[in-house]
């Protein structure tokens, strides 16, 4: 039997991938948008829907970024509401391990698992301190290298809380008058958390909610190999995906885990057309909607750390080099480029080789995994990636809110089902069953 593909849907978020200028683009806040996409994902038998978290609005050059979709609701609150309008779909959300505490995350995710009958997942991330911290009591308080240590201990602690009630602790015997034999007690003493007491909820329908981890760094890979059920990644090519897959799966043995215990699900966008040419033409249009002239200049300024607003996005790259000593111009976006001089050098070479304008260069340099073609072609390509071990499945990132997943669910999924690589219907009720029982 061929490998079975895992599929998740990312609710379009606040970066420039989300096209708001399209007439079909709806509200990113109205609950009807979330409901629409969740129902579509469930109709398509997806494993889960995924929501990111925002803790501070992005700023560029000292001002709130106004060119992308801005603003989103609170993650767990939306997922709890979605639990009422779905019955099988997994509900995954990001909660930062930097600006939350284990007790509150444990009870929120546990509550979500109880409310949804076993469909909750928590994406454990760390947040940059200083900028985001201005919105929190804790402020900026951790050295960068300590953030993963906190994240690891955070997850360990949350799991201790989830496991604190004995499996038979809840009794509910009306006749004898025993509601609970004994509530879960915990004691955790570590460098990050020194807490003890009683946890508020019995073990959840999944035993433990699903744990997702995102991040490509060495620490991130190790953390995921040790602790996560699913790892998100971002890879441009089949080969990059395979290299990542091999590396991460190789790390599992050291933790007594097997190959199947951690699922690798890269983020991917998709563009469908009635013909291959039509799909590519549409994909090109979408990229130009995503990278407007002002967006292109902003991307360049992220790397250059200089005001480049006088440059023409349709013209060549600036002669001037990045300022390696300057503060970043963009805050609240993950900084992928550690060495901006090196990135600028690569970008310049790419632009010269392909004769690209600033805007074209940014489109080329920031394009991630994209599946483009007819529904049948996309189904085959997705399947090729999974069968050749570049991934276990994908987290699809539609470019339109809320209807961007409709075509995939209605047109691509049937092809995957025909290929025998994707479920015709849910066989279990919990997210853990969707992901791990074949």
């Amino acid at each position, binding site marked *: 039997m061929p490998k079975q593909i895992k599929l998740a849907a990312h609710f379009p978020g606040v970066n420039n991938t989300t096209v708001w*200028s399209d007439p079909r683009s709806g509200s990113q*806040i109205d*609950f009807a948008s979330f409901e629409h996409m969740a129902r579509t994902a469930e109709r398509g038998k997806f494993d889960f829907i995924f929501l990111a978290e*925002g*803790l*501070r*609005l992005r700023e560029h050059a000292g001002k*709130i970024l*106004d*060119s992308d*979709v*801005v*603003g*989103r*609701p*609170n993650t*767990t*609150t*939306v997922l*709890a*509401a979605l*639990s*009422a*309008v779905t019955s099988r779909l997994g509900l995954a959300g990001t909660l930062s391990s930097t600006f*939350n*505490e284990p*007790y*509150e995350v444990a*009870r*929120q995710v546990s*509550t979500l698992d109880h*409310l949804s*009958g076993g469909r909750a997942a928590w994406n454990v991330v760390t947040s940059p301190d200083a900028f985001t911290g*201005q*919105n*929190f*009591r*804790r*402020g900026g308080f951790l050295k960068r290298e300590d953030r993963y240590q906190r994240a690891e201990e955070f997850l360990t602690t949350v799991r201790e809380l989830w496991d604190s009630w004995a499996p038979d602790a*809840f*009794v*509910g015997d*009306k006749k004898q*008058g*025993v*509601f*609970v034999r*004994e*509530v879960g007690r915990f004691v955790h003493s570590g460098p990050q958390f*020194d*807490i*003890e*007491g*009683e*946890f*508020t*909820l*019995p073990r959840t329908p999944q035993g433990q909610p699903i744990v997702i981890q995102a991040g490509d760094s060495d620490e991130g890979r190790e953390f995921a190999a040790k602790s996560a059920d699913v790892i998100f990644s971002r890879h441009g090519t089949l080969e990059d995906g395979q290299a990542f897959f091999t590396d991460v799966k190789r790390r599992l043995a050291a933790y007594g885990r097997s190959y199947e215990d951690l699922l690798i699900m890269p983020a991917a966008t998709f563009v469908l057309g009635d013909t291959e040419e039509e799909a590519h033409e549409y994909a090109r249009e979408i990229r130009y909607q995503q990278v*407007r*002239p002002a967006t292109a200049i902003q991307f360049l300024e992220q790397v250059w750390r200089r005001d480049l607003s006088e440059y023409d996005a349709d013209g060549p790259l600036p002669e001037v080099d990045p300022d390696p000593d300057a503060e970043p111009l963009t805050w609240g976006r993950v900084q992928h480029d550690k060495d901006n001089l090196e990135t600028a050098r690569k970008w310049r070479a790419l632009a010269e080789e392909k004769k690209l304008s600033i805007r074209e260069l940014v489109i080329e340099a920031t394009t991630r995994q994209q599946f483009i073609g007819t529904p049948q072609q996309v189904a085959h390509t997705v399947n090729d990636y999974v069968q050749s071990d570049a991934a276990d499945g994908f987290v699809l990132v539609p470019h339109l809110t809320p209807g961007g997943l409709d075509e995939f669910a209605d047109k691509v999924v049937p092809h995957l089902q025909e290929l025998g690589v994707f479920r015709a219907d849910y066989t279990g009720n919990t997210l853990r069953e969707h992901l791990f029982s074949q």
Partner: protein
Amino acid sequence: MASSELHFGVAIDGAGYHPAAWRASGVEPAALFTVGPYLAAAGLAESAKLDFVTLDDSLGVQPGESSVVRGRLDALLTLAALGPVTHSIGLVPTVTTTHIEPFHVSTAVATLDHVSRGRAGVLAVPSRTEAEVRHFGRRTLPSASEARVENTEVIDVVTRLWDSWEDDAIVRDEPTGRFIDRDKLHYVDFEGTFFSVKGPSITPRPPQGHPVVATYGEDHDLLIEGKTLAIVSVLLGETEQHALDRRRQLDSLYGNEFRPPGRDFVGTPAALAAALRVWSTGVDGFLIRPAVLPDDLELFANETVPELRRAGLIREDYTGTTLREHLGLAKPANQYQGV
């Protein structure tokens, strides 16, 4: 609204206020960890056209022996799950303000307002238990006055964060390439005694402008933006004797007499209507705490409410769609607009 009309909320906590309620209730004990009983109770309150339901919470486990309900779901998330499947009833979770980040409180309550289309409130309560301090492990127990001042600060900054987006901040202006008008977003730059918050919120201003903020008063009442609702614990029976018998049964199951603090009513639904009429002097309404759910809420909704309606003390039907409208509260002006 006629001035004689009263506002009503219902506490839908666990199986009811009596410690033995879970043994007498028809609800399966395990179901208290699912959405079912809360949805059913909110549905009853909605069918009676009441203003809102409350759901209690804390960052610890309810005290007591193994014979009482211990353990509960996060109240805000539970009411969020009711948002899409109820239509008119206001949803007012308890949120503790001592250990949770004010920024998270603001976005969670704003989102409850978004998912319920303008029916959210929040009962802001400081926590002052050693147990909760130990669950967080990074601060000492605040004094009563510190916790009160901090609660006020949290409400202040949460309100500012709700206002940090003007209602029409999202412009989607294609020609200029602007999704938002950033001049309509505001830093709150809050510097208090206990914390500071930069802002703006990440969540646009909720439908009600401000979800309705409630706090506990000192005299077993609920204070809601200038209105006072007396808290009344009710245990009902078709006859007064039946009600007294029910209380005796509950007390005997519990093994002790249990008397709720504050106003404690035991009797028939009609007698309750008469009592509420008497008690209504000087208050704007009541928060009803049923002894056993759904039993006492059913009797209240089906028998007391019609009596009150005949007496002109409760409106015939919802006249608006938001909790503010139910309570006769205007949508607040944005404190940053035009600043």
